[in-house]
């Protein structure tokens, strides 16, 4: 038996405008009295359920000198809770063949399980026990062990990777010291070392309350039964205090920033970064389109000029990277051997200035929109993908059904609009970060033109 999952609507407006593709998922949302938001979406096409618990806490809720807590805390959530033994969280889930993980970013912390549909209850039990009963099982020994694991994660992903620390150099350069996006999600080594058991417990009490979380379930389940299980396992936990969220303060650079670092790399790389709009806004959509016009596909402007025609860059990308309270627009170009970053920078400037002066074409915009629409369908191909998107739309926009309106911000974007925002954001002061091979500082950008 298979019910109709959702419909894909294709409406061709006029022949020259690409068809707008939207998904139309049937979604139920409700709240428990303790404030836990529950989102359900049924799909019986495969015997699989995706369960996501997303907490509205990330590294931006941390304080200076106390960085890396949100992510360290994510690790502690896998170490057992009052009714689940130390190594048992992983083992119970691997024993039923579940796929599981957790992730942390600036704004949210996310936990998921993909389980065979007969094991939904186990997933809910485990998520509930660590939401409500984590502290009794927390020990100094576990904290010390996971602190080591996280430090190893930092070495694996940041310190032992070429160009690996560039992202934190950018965050530090672009935002003032007190801005919550100025430190890396994974935290600084010295702050991880200083993390104290009391800090960790306070963090849990404040941010892991049911009213700061969203439970999102997509897949092959019976809704009445799922609701009864949610009530059984989550209802007893008390509501937490209201959470004070970091304010959205305007950020800008007063002048260009020039930084040069030597790293163990063979090829120099340029990062050119501007402040840009926050996520889920029209401006965010327009800047996303601009990024793709510049670097997605062989005929995109930066790729064609630097990688394809002149062949001075090994790779180039331009992208709008937006978060809950701010965004950055970034061009990253890696030089071919023998090419300096100043040369690359000149070419990037000439392309970007071309957009500011003369805009882009409607054809370029349409092509990007078509690709983005295909991406929307790919994201709803799995129950996990749907559960994830619904949860994040709930926490960041207040409505999980915005998964059905992902392309709304992209409707009728015009060349004039792209040009206006390119001018607004990319004429402002920027950061120029050069990462060059050791002893080769002459390949870096030495001065701002």
């Amino acid at each position, binding site marked *: 038996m298979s019910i109709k999952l959702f419909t894909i609507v294709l409406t061709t407006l006029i022949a020259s405008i690409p068809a707008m*593709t939207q998904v139309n998922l049937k979604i139920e949302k409700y709240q428990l009295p303790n404030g836990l938001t529950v989102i359900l979406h049924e799909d019986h096409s495969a015997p699989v359920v995706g369960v996501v618990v997303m907490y509205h806490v990330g590294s931006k809720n941390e304080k200076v000198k106390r960085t890396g807590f949100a992510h360290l805390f994510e690790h502690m959530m896998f170490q057992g809770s009052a009714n689940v033994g130390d190594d048992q969280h992983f083992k119970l889930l691997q024993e039923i063949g579940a796929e599981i993980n957790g992730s942390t970013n600036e704004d949210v912390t996310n936990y998921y399980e993909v389980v065979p549909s007969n094991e939904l209850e186990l997933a809910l039990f485990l998520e509930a026990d660590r939401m409500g009963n984590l502290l009794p099982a927390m020990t100094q020994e576990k904290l010390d062990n996971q602190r080591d694991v996280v430090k190893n994660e930092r070495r694996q992903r940041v310190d032992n990777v070429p160009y690996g620390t560039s992202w934190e150099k950018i965050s530090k350069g672009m935002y003032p010291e007190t801005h919550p996006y100025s430190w890396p999600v994974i935290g600084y080594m010295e702050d991880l070392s200083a993390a104290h058991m009391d800090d960790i417990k306070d963090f849990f009490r404040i941010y892991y309350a049911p009213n700061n979380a969203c439970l999102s379930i997509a897949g092959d389940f019976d809704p009445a039964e799922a609701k009864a299980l949610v009530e059984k396992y989550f209802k007893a936990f008390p509501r937490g205090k209201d959470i004070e969220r970091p304010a959205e303060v305007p950020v800008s650079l007063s002048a260009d920033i020039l930084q040069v670092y030597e790293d163990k790399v063979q090829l120099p790389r340029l990062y050119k970064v501007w402040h840009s709009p926050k996520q889920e806004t029209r401006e965010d959509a327009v800047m996303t389109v601009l990024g793709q016009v510049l670097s997605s596909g062989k005929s995109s402007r930066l790729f064609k000029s630097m990688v394809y025609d002149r062949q001075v860059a090994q790779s180039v990308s331009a992208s709008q990277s937006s978060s809950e309270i701010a965004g950055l627009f970034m061009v990253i170009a890696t030089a071919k051997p023998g090419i300096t970053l100043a040369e690359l920078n000149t070419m990037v400037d000439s392309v970007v200035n071309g957009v500011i002066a003369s805009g882009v074409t409607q054809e370029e915009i349409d092509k990007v929109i078509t690709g983005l629409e295909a991406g929307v369908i790919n994201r709803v191909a799995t129950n996990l993908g749907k559960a994830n998107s619904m949860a994040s739309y709930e926490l960041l926009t207040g409505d999980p059904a915005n998964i059905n309106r992902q392309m709304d911000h992209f409707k009728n974007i015009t060349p004039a609009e792209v040009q206006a925002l390119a001018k607004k954001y990319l004429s402002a002061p920027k950061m120029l970060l050069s990462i060059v091979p050791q002893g080769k500082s002459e390949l870096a950008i030495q001065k701002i033109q």
Partner: protein
Amino acid sequence: MNRTLILAGVLIAMSLTVGTLTAQVPAAIPKGKPAPVVKVPTINKTKLSNGLSIWLVEHHELPLVAFNLVIQTGADHDPLTQPGLASMTSDVLDEGTARRDAIQISDELESIGANLGVSSGIDGSFVTLRTLTTHIDKALAVYSDVIVNPTFPQKEFDRLKSQRLASLMQQKDQPTSIANNAFAHILYSANHPYGLNSSGTTTSVEGLTRDDLVKFYGAHYRPGNAVLIVVGDVTLEGITKKLEASFAAWADAPAPHFSMPAPEPATTRKIYLIDKQGAPQSEVRIGYPALARSTPDYFPVFLMNRMLGGQFASRINMNLREKHGYTYGANSSFSFRKGVGPFVASGGIVTEKTDSALVQFLYEIDLMREKGMTDEEMSFVKKGLIGNFALNFETPSQLASMMQNIILYGLPDDYYSTYLQNIEKVTPVEVLRVAKQYLDSSRMAMVVVGDMATIRPGIEGAMLGAIVVCNTDGDPLP
């Protein structure tokens, strides 16, 4: 024919109450309900008049269709003097045809939101296409043109060759790439295709010409050496008609003779040190040439490794990560290929604990070899694999990768419908037998890429074997 598997009998009998209850709050770990019925989809097969086999699985949940042309030739066919040939052929394949230049190919597909992918692995080369069903005709026109009529333009070849040379430089920045390449070279030497870097070397890539690619394409990209997988919102009859028209011009020719040499067996354990000054972590690879995919011991070896290092809750990861905090993650795997692939245990280890971690890797490998798995572990692994099986039928790409597996390794058509029975059948006695046979750490190579000055004294002190200092290619330094 639809094969339906009932998993219920398996799971009902098993209890999930292995957790240690430490709570004041009474809350029991719930038991699962009867397992869901997993429908292994039917593969519909047909053959085009030029000999190209089509394998189709219908999937109507999304208005998408995915194609994967599997060429039975990968980097394993690179001549010993020309590593990188298969992968450069893939790279340039979609850069021009008799009708379209590189930019047109890219633009035409982008304008309909379709994605074309060309890649090559060790066992095969792949040309994939993903498109909305509404645009299938336009997408197929470009896809088949790229497969049937590529012209390998000199200009695009030169550009991609220069890119490849730069990316080979970049591989030397990555401790993980250095470790993987050196490990393969040390295990298989330069006299075996598995010892070569499939991306090539600076010398081999500099020596490649456009003609080499044209010849490689002509010899191996033939209907008789390929299978086209189709998954998605189409029917066999409908798609066959379209494919017959699109691929009509693709002529068959016999594939050249090929035989894979057997690797030299390892004899003694040695530690190969490669210096990466100042590295905060050491990349460790431990292993030797082990088994081909065709081994009759596949299932017992697969289960045994699952417990040893093949999942998060494996012994190696629980020991090195959760107990000792040496690493973000450690694992082991048997790389089952067409020929004899390696066993490898690996991890990125904090520099100061490199020698201790090597000792713990060997401890776990030897313990498995001596004692095998407990009954409890056996049941844990089997239940996990059985439950996980149900998760593999959700998306077109999952279905396509199952078919790809059957095609590349010549597995029986009923491989997935008998998979669970084969998992069930494995006994602890068999696991112990294969552990004894295939986990001989006294013959394994231990490759370590790290800060030599810091790690060497500890490794010498641990007396695990003779030490050989190597360059980043894995060749001994004088």
